[in-house]
């Protein structure tokens, strides 16, 4: 395989679609995160994470896992930490 062809294969393998899929998979399967419901979007050199987690520590670990699986991309962790309120009003059924 020529250098050019190899480069092309690597870059098509690293198309944004596949990077996003790889990061999403890692966030689900990595012991540090185990987060299934995260939206992952890649736009150019930027990677965005969106969703909700239970505490700030969990959010921080997502940045680490995403970064490791998307070398060269800037991770924007837009995940919010859930604010759990009291029980609130009941509903009569």
């Amino acid at each position: 395989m020529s250098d050019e062809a190899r480069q092309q294969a690597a870059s098509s393998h690293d198309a944004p679609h596949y990077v996003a899929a790889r990061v999403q998979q890692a966030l689900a399967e990595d012991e540090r995160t185990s987060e299934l419901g995260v939206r992952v979007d890649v736009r150019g050199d930027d990677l965005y994470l969106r969703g909700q987690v239970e505490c700030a520590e969990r959010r921080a670990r997502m940045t680490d896992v995403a970064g490791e699986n998307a070398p060269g991309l800037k991770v924007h962790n837009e995940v919010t930490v859930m604010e759990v309120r009291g029980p609130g009003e009941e509903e009569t059924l």
Partner: protein
Amino acid sequence: MKIRVAAVGDVHLGEDIRGRYREKLQGIEEHADVLLLAGDLTRHGTPAEGRIVAEEFGGLPVPVVTVLGNHDYHSDAEDEIGAMLDDAGIHVLRDDATVISLDDGTRLGVAGGKGFGGGFAGKCASEFGEPQMKSFVGHTREIAERWHKALKGLDDVDHRVVLSHYSPTKDTLAGEPLEIYPFLGSYLLAEAADAEGADLFLHGHAHHGTEKGVTPGGVRVRNVALPVLGRAYAVYCLGGEDPESC
């Protein structure tokens, strides 16, 4: 004969938030008569996390009934976790039913289990082709068959609730990507409730979904996943025709 049912799912407890949920359950007996948990109690399904769940939800002043979720199966320790919860006085449903009797004589029947996916009528997977596909859909069908039986057995109760991790309807998935609906629930679960009759169907799992929906047969569905509720638990009052009575 009214009863106030508190419910929440997907609390995903772990070492990093140990003790925090317990605070939110202070005074629950003033708001509810029973607490139902819709699975995904842990993050990885390890026995260590199971112990945290037992500490957090054990010994409450109201009876607690739970099902497990997919996360609670992740470390192949679901039996061990189930046994820990049983020991902590938390009733774990395993595709069967239990009856809770209140002091005033009201009897609440709760039937269910984890549930599973497959999709929704007209747009669902079927038991055809590869063995992997057959076992995927077959798992849900077997679960639904057991729920039919469990609900049938609840013949002398005032109210019946189905408790599940997976969803019986698309209604409460609104907000989730359409592409993953088949992994979020199955219409077979709704069919069991519709055929045998129930007052309420509770589920979790769909963190981006919506709280309120209804099965094709008219059973009220509530997605009580914590990220959907945004509150420690929801309270549903059954049998309170007079809104003031609950």
